[in-house]
């Protein structure tokens, strides 16, 4: 079945009124410009924080078979961070030894990194997570510098260290 098409010749031209569309487009543009907020360039450190467990008398070199129910019975390397009155790092110790004394500057952080590399580089290292004991007054900015050094460490299986726990470092004489 064929339809016949009528061809009409007309001299009239149909013109769209673009002004209304332009008005709408400008309104949309204004909305997007006003609500536009470029996202800041933010990075992140991913951590897998184990569930909180009671901690009593954590000692870095405590033998694993000591029967203590605290976190020291797991393979945790204990890092203690002391703070000064302004909340800056005053010193860091790794296990029973002292990593550095003073602020968390590039030199001291490099020294900490070197010591941790030695510890985690040992074959059959007993550590698979880090317990960071932090002075309550320590500022987050300085803490992140230490966490950054820790997350750079690689375990013997090649994976990056991600298991990190935090606990407050109690002042000498305070009860836990």
């Amino acid at each position, binding site marked *: 079945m064929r339809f016949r098409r009528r061809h009409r010749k007309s001299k009239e031209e149909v013109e769209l009124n*673009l*002004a209304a*569309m*332009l008005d709408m*487009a*400008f309104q*949309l*543009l204004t909305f*997007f*410009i006003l*609500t*536009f*907020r*470029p*996202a*800041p*360039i*933010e*990075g*992140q*450190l*991913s*951590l*897998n*924080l*184990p*569930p*909180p467990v009671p901690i009593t008398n954590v000692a870095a070199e405590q033998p694993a078979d000591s029967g203590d129910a605290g976190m020291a019975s797991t393979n945790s390397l204990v890092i203690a961070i002391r703070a000064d009155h302004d*909340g800056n790092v005053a010193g860091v110790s790794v296990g029973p030894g002292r990593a550095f004394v003073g602020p968390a500057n590039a030199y001291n952080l490099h020294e900490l990194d070197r010591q941790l590399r030695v510890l985690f580089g040992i074959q059959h290292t007993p550590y698979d997570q880090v317990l960071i004991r*932090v*002075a*309550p*007054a*320590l*500022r*987050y*900015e300085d*803490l*992140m*510098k230490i*966490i*950054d050094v820790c997350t*750079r460490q690689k375990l013997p299986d090649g994976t990056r260290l991600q298991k990190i726990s*935090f*606990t*407050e470092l109690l002042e000498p004489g305070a009860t836990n």
Partner: protein
Amino acid sequence: MSASMSHDSSAEPNLTPMLDMVFQLVTFFMLVINFKGAALDLSLKLPVLGSARPLDTEGHDELFVLNVDAQGKLKVYGIEKDLKSYIASEARVTAAKLSTSNSKFKAGDELPTMVVLRADKGIPFKLLNEIIKTCQEHGFRRFSLKAMTKAEGS
């Protein structure tokens, strides 16, 4: 002396190129708009960490963003909220969602949601630890600590 002219034809500008340009601009802004950015409190001063990398969840992970200022106060879309009750309610909602979608999920199980902690660089550890512990008590295990990759203005 007067010169009066009468025209039958009126001069109309061609609006098509302008409309094209405006639509291109609209398209650009539509593509770059980020509604999730409203959840971020941009007044916070995050710590600066050169090795921090952008978070790439490939759209699989659910994120739970916490904006915490230097005094340990939580702000959600600019409104101050009680930290403990807010975390508890979020954990309840997430657990309820999981229990309907996953039959193996039990109450008290680990939640897969990642807690994105955007804390001011000046917050003392004592306050920060309270927040982390509260999250852990409600089943959150995965944390993402936010930091700027370079200092502002540099």
